[in-house]
């Protein structure tokens, strides 16, 4: 499955900050780590700040710091801020959906969405950081 760019940037930013919550990083520093646009990342960080997941730190050397609970925040909690993940309710009605074939296909796609949602909801930021640690060690 593919995440929208904003969702991916948000997950990168939150995990990067949650990995060391005592540290503050600027949008530019996070963007450089992941090879992404600092401009886009700044917008994403603004949304994360409003959601209470990060806080901005003012003054010289300011930036952002993780403000959430890594064990109690799931990937779905982050992604949900940027893209609707409610399957049929969120998707526009596709042509042909009112036909038996279209309806059957929608049923299969809804099943896939439900599995994807449950998977994302089951992975906390803390668990994802453990996975990242294993990747780094490999």
């Amino acid at each position, binding site marked *: 499955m593919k995440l929208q760019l904003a969702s991916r940037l948000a997950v990168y930013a939150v995990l990067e900050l949650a990995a060391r919550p005592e540290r503050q990083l600027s949008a530019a520093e996070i963007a450089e780590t992941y090879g992404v646009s600092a401009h886009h990342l700044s917008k994403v960080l603004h949304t994360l700040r409003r959601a209470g997941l990060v806080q901005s730190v003012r003054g010289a050397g300011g930036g952002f710091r993780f403000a*959430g609970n890594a064990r*109690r925040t799931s990937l779905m909690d982050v992604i949900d801020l940027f893209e609707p993940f409610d399957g049929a309710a969120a998707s526009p009605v596709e042509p042909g959906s009112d036909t038996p074939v279209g309806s059957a296909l929608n049923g299969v796609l809804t099943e896939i969405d439900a599995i994807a949602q449950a998977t994302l909801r089951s992975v906390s930021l803390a668990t994802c950081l453990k996975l990242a640690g294993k990747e780094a060690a490999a």
Partner: protein
Amino acid sequence: MTEILDYGIVPIAIRRVRQEDLPAIVALDAEITGVAKPDYWSEAYTRYGQNRPTERAFLVAETQDDPPRVVGAIAGEVRAWEFGSPPCGWLFSMQVVPDARQGKIATRLFEELRRFFQANGADTVRTMVARDNHLMLSFLRSQGLRGGPYLQLEMEIEPDLDHAGKGR
């Protein structure tokens, strides 16, 4: 997103289940699920607690209080060739009383079962969890479990109809 405090590691002892633990396990499960199932847990005790001890484990976590209190339980078995799978450890059930959570009890119970599986020939742990059981899914992911190569499928069994279109 709710802030939940970590109350530190709760001192417990983990041991094999005994018959006299059943009322506490029934109560523990009823507190979590809302349904008391004494017959179900009696059968689970027979199957996992008494039969085939080298393949099946039913463990409880009890506090160091006087008298000790059962605050968690876990059960599972090593199964071979079900669904085409080489021997693997199936986690059948796990519960921790709500007022004793956040004390690493589930983690220690799971670790004991994992060791049991490994000592009895299994190098994989599998289980099935309801999609909306976010707490259990999140816990198991934190222990390292991830989606496996199987899909759970199901269907409702509809009654057969006779030629008149009536149920048999």
